[in-house]
């Protein structure tokens, strides 16, 4: 273990503490202007935390606008915290009482969580509390209370809005996954208030509510809205939240009220912990607020650097960051189960005391979560039904950012001679799945039982790299930029992305004009794998081919010189997913021939004029990383040099000597 992180952490904490204290209290977060066209819901929530009871009591004033052509008679609300109410909820059912390594069967009463609406009425004073009932439209599990439906007494006509006043109680569970409380008064409130579902067109074009129950393996989906949230809490807490802090008012009894505003967001989360250190920095005018426990403060420079890289890259290659701030929360170890998650303008990460600098999972994770501000918060796809549309895109950009700033072959790990790139790691997460063909990508999260991450994150990102490979970097970037402009603050679906892609291909030049619809069909809805292999490379004597060929009038005359030879190359796809692929033949004299095999075939038998071949490569520029075995993609007569063999020996003996040294000191 190097001493550097310790010295570094001491210096950094000392410097940054004085710096952030100087900035504290200033109004530096300037709220973005809301886009009324996209805002469906407006919230004003006042909440007070009672740490001893692990509860928050809130009042919520909600205004919801019917932007559909339908008359609305009921509104379903997400009640996510009820997923942690008992082991029979649809979220916990079938878990065997264990989630993320935590056993729940011995939970005390205090450790369960729930949310309850105690009163709901219209702004005209009509009490609707009795009109609430839990619904379970997905699985009919009567014990599940993750969705509650409000039957309206008055119909809501197209274009009309309804204002509702609610009183609710949110009891946090001991952290199971994401939301909850932990030791030393750690509280993380996400999906903690009643939130309406999304009334939208489904895949068939029919309008209806999209408000699924909460299942493991799924995340969230909600409309855009403007939030004004007042949080009353003990003064000892350090608080972070989505959006900008507008005001801070000291109250009697050592309490304080923070007022936060977040515009044009799909959710609002907040976190409170007395032992957080608070640091503030900026990227241009955007406030970066970091909440980090003292024991992790040596990680702060790493977080800051990584997030600034992400800002820079995404602004250049996708579009401008649409919000005024980002709050990064690094939970203490005991609250790690609340980490690695994204909410609008608030992300949680995960680090460890003195984590080695050469292992950049910290950077990779914070970049991943930050990228969700583009693909989830802004382009708000349905995380429940089409998780690949946010996680896949985010992983794709996480790879790009990491490889760009930290080195392609060493961006994730560069530790004592061991190296691994981020995109390399992503591809391997897909290719080394137990069964890469276990299912399709494009399906709801609750249907995926196998390796969720390998499929949704890694395969999608690898597919996008392949898409970029066919389109060309420039054209792909143009497509993403226009996709971002067209769909920000909206809810695009697969069909929307595909039609956008088709439109782009019609209007712009791409490297290869292939059937992109077929490509997406095969990758998103198929289960096949690609593994092209060079089967054989042969020189054939053409003596026995002399003569006249063809039966029609345009007989092809072929006269071949004596001793002339032809090069035959055989290629087979060992998988079942046939995709276009490049083939490069390099000749010793320096020239080369690049072919694009776009017949979507299982086998290719190629004939080329003979020459002094140096090597033959399939996919030489790795435009098709979906290929699960790259080792059989090339045939070279160029064997390793002596120096390469020595270096191999050198590396091998280094590793062996470490092991042997250990043995020899033990015995």
């Amino acid at each position: 273990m190097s001493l550097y992180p310790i010295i570094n952490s001491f210096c950094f904490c000392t410097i940054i503490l004085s710096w952030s204290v100087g900035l504290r209290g200033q109004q530096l977060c300037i709220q973005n202007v809301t886009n009324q066209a996209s805002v469906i819901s407006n919230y004003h929530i006042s909440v007070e935390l009672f740490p001893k009871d692990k509860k928050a009591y809130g009042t919520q004033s909600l205004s919801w606008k019917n932007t559909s052509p339908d008359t609305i008679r009921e509104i379903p609300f997400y009640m996510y915290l009820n997923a942690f109410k008992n082991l029979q909820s649809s979220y916990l059912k079938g878990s065997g009482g264990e989630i993320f390594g935590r056993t729940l069967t011995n939970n005390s009463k205090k450790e369960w969580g729930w949310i309850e609406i105690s009163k709901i009425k219209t702004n005209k004073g009509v009490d609707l509390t009795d009109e609430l009932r839990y619904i379970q439209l997905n699985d009919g599990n009567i014990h599940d209370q993750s969705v509650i439906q409000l039957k309206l007494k008055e119909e809501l006509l197209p274009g009309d809005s309804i204002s509702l006043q609610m009183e609710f109680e949110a009891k946090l569970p001991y952290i199971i996954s994401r939301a909850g409380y932990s030791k030393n008064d750690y509280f993380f409130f996400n999906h903690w208030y009643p939130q309406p579902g999304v009334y939208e067109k489904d895949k068939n074009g029919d309008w209806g509510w999209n408000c699924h129950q909460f299942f493991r393996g799924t995340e969230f989906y909600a409309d855009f809205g403007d939030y004004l949230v007042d949080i009353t809490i003990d003064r000892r807490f350090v608080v972070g939240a989505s959006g900008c802090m507008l005001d801070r008012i000291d109250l009697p009894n050592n309490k304080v009220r923070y007022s936060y505003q977040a515009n044009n967001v799909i959710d609002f989360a907040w976190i409170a912990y007395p032992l957080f250190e608070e640091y503030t920095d900026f990227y241009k005018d955007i406030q970066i607020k970091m909440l980090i426990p003292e024991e992790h403060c040596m990680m702060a420079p790493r977080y800051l650097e990584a997030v600034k890289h992400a800002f820079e890259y995404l602004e250049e290659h996708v579009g401008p960051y649409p919000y005024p701030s980002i709050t990064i929360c690094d939970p203490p170890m005991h609250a790690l189960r609340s980490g690695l998650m994204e909410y609008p303008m608030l992300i949680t990460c995960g680090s460890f005391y003195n984590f080695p600098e050469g292992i950049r999972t910290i950077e990779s994770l914070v970049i991943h979560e930050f990228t969700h501000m583009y693909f989830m918060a802004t382009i708000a796809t349905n995380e429940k039904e089409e998780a690949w549309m946010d996680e896949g895109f985010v992983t794709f950009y996480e790879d790009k950012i990491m490889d760009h700033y930290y080195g392609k072959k060493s961006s994730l790990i560069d530790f004592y001679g061991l190296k691994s790139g981020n995109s390399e790691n992503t591809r391997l997460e897909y290719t080394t799945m137990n069964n890469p063909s276990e299912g399709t990508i494009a399906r709801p999260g609750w249907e995926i039982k196998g390796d969720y991450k390998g499929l949704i994150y890694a395969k999608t990102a690898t597919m996008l790299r392949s898409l970029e490979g066919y389109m060309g970097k420039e054209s792909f970037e143009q497509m993403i930029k226009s996709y971002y402009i067209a769909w920000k603050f909206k809810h695009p679906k697969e069909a929307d992305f595909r039609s956008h892609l088709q439109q782009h291909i019609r209007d712009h030049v791409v490297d290869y004009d292939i059937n992109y619809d077929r490509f997406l069909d095969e990758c998103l809805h198929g289960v096949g794998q690609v593994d092209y292999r060079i089967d054989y490379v042969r020189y054939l004597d053409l003596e026995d081919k002399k003569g006249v060929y063809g039966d029609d009038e345009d007989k092809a005359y072929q006269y071949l010189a004596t001793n002339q030879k032809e090069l035959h190359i055989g290629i087979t796809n060992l998988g079942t997913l046939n995709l276009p692929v490049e083939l490069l033949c390099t000749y010793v004299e320096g020239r080369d021939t690049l072919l694009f095999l776009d017949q979507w075939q299982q086998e290719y038998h190629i004939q080329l004029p003979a020459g002094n071949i140096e090597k033959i490569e399939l996919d030489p520029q790795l435009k098709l990383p979906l290929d699960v075995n790259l080792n059989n993609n090339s045939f070279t007569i160029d064997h390793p040099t002596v120096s390469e063999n020595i270096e191999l020996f050198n590396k091998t003996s280094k590793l062996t000597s470490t092991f042997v040294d250990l043995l020899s000191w033990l015995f």
Partner: protein
Amino acid sequence: MIRANTYKIINHWRQILFLYLLQLLTSLSFFYMTIESFSSLQNSKAFSSIHMLDRTVISDFVKANPSVLGLYQEVFLIVVLLYIIVHTFINAGVLKSLQNGEYSIRDLFRHGAMYFWKFLLINLSYGAIVLLITGLSFLVFFTIVGDPIIYFDTEKPLVHWVLSLLFLSMLVLVLFWGASLNVKIRILKGNKVVHAFRLMFRKIGKVVGLIAFYAMILIVIKQGLYHLGDLCSNLYVAFLCTQLVLGFSILLRFDFYNRLLK
């Protein structure tokens, strides 16, 4: 004192060379196994990337050839067993030679053969104690702590606790090891194990100090070694340096034996 010690170690150059060659052979066995395993890639451009320990090449290869892992495990076990046997033999010879002040390779072999079974028995019981100590340490740790994520407020005490536990385990191991060294020698003179342990406890400061000192030197050397390949453009120089470092680590071990026996 340092000079005298250095002279004494230099006088053992034959044994040091012998041990170096032994380690070289072990490395070579891994090297040739690696080359052999990847021979099916001879015509792939991936083959020339193996020297980079390229993760993609290795992962794709193992995925396509899962039997290779089994082969590595088998060879690995064989090499470990062979290494233990040969080193037991060599240690017996080295320790007796150091005690007697006889430096010839012939003496080293003679003493090695003479005391091989006794040393093997001690080494095996030592191995069992290593497993017992580490196993017990972690058993006690997890019995008390349960889930460390929930038990600790921060991971700092966890890290410190684990490090302390490891240090304590190491200390006990070193004491046992040192005692066994004494036992090896004293047994030859007919003395008892308890007496040997008592002697080692008297030398506890020296033992810990030496271990810490050599561990530090080795860490520094290893750190340099891992960066050498990247920094040094001349592969042959890098290769030679690697071998020198290997030799140096053996030299350190000799010095350690020598000091402990005083």
